[in-house]
């Protein structure tokens, strides 16, 4: 959830660097240079990002095919690629994407085209109430409060207060059976390479925030994990990803972070 719009090509942008590190083409030379700097510091980072992003299709299927949700509201959707939620949901599911960056929104609308029941709105994930209060969203949702929310790959741009506020707002707004799918990125901020990466982002005007799982659990209360609990990415995908000792120092917890379905 970068502060600056992605349209500003004169400085590196966190959203476009993210895209570059994932192998996308929505980035410029200046982003690739910053991305290469980060890759040199943290060679495991692109793998870590892929591992978390690969979950999206599982999240979409789990929420709609297995758990029967017919509405998903996704926050900080970013530059939507072909892997995003609407490609894997059960037929008839309404998917509402959102991002605060107007270029992401326009780009997302290009991708979605005439896809039925898929929408993209400009909104800041730090204030989910603003998206939910939009007239267009209210028209889609009507009285429906049985909704699955998704915050995936954005936790590092949110302060503790942002997370607590979003969690509480969505908890109060939604019905008893609703769900919040969340990916929590975990890195050791004391580790030298991670500290340098955070400094690079800081110089771009982007503050990054990492917190341990135990802190996160407190922030999202009264949401609680479902029976699958918090899962590291190896466990989620059922694979063992090879990491060097250096990788393990920088990404100590579950290799990259945790995915979870939070319920009431």
């Amino acid at each position, binding site marked *: 959830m970068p502060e600056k*719009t992605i*349209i500003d090509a004169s400085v590196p942008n966190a959203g476009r660097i993210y895209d570059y590190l*994932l*192998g*996308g*083409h*929505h980035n410029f030379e200046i982003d690739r240079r910053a991305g290469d700097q980060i890759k040199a510091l943290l060679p495991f980072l*692109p*793998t870590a990002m*892929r591992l978390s*992003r*690969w979950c*999206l*299709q*599982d999240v979409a299927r789990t929420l709609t095919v297995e758990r029967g949700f017919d509405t998903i509201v996704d926050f900080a959707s970013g530059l939507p*690629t*072909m*892997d995003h939620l609407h*490609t894997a949901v059960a037929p008839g599911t309404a998917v509402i994407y959102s991002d605060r960056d*107007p*270029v992401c929104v*326009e*780009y997302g*609308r*290009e*991708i979605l085209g005439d896809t039925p029941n898929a929408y993209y709105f400009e909104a800041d994930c730090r204030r989910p109430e603003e998206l939910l209060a939009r007239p267009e969203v209210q028209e889609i949702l009507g009285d429906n409060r049985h909704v699955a929310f998704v915050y995936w790959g954005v936790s590092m741009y949110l302060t503790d207060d942002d997370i607590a506020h979003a969690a509480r707002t969505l908890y109060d707004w939604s019905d008893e059976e609703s769900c919040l799918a969340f990916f929590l990125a975990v890195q050791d901020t004391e580790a030298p390479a991670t500290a340098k990466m955070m400094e690079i982002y800081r110089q771009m005007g982007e503050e990054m925030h990492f917190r341990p799982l135990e802190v996160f659990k407190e922030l999202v209360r009264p949401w609680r994990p479902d029976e699958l609990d918090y899962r590291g990415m190896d466990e989620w*995908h*059922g*694979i063992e990803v090879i990491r060097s000792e250096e990788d393990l120092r920088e990404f100590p917890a579950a290799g990259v972070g945790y995915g979870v379905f939070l319920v009431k």
Partner: protein
Amino acid sequence: MKPGLPPPSEEKEILNQVAGQLVSQKAAIASELHQALRATDMSNRLLISPRRLEEMAQEELKAFLHFLETGDEEETHQRGARRASEGLGERSALAMTEALRRACWMANLDGEALRVALEASGRYVNAFLEGYMSGREEEILKEQERTRHAFQRVLEKQAHS
């Protein structure tokens, strides 16, 4: 027909025999393919998660066996393009085609059958990779155009606000 090759009908018969031989080793070849895909999975883009690789190995082996029967390079070309648009990484594409070529080498074929099989696998790999490269290029150009259009629309909105 290239010099030294058997006439088409004879070649077809040999390829059917080759396909039969490979079918008898299907499980082992699919496993090789899966390992090749698994070893290069981080080159894949996002639609191809590790969970899908086993199924993909089976699909690719089936497509190769089908090619040995039909020799349809156009179909293979389209297959390569489709894999590119799904997000198959370059390293995975190369590892997969290499595994298919290796399967022919390892299939206990006699001299003439081996030669025909390697010729056919060469045609298959070329058609697949040509399709893959054109598919990649098409994706990149499509993404560029979407980016341009999105930027233009935002700039227009900003100009009017």
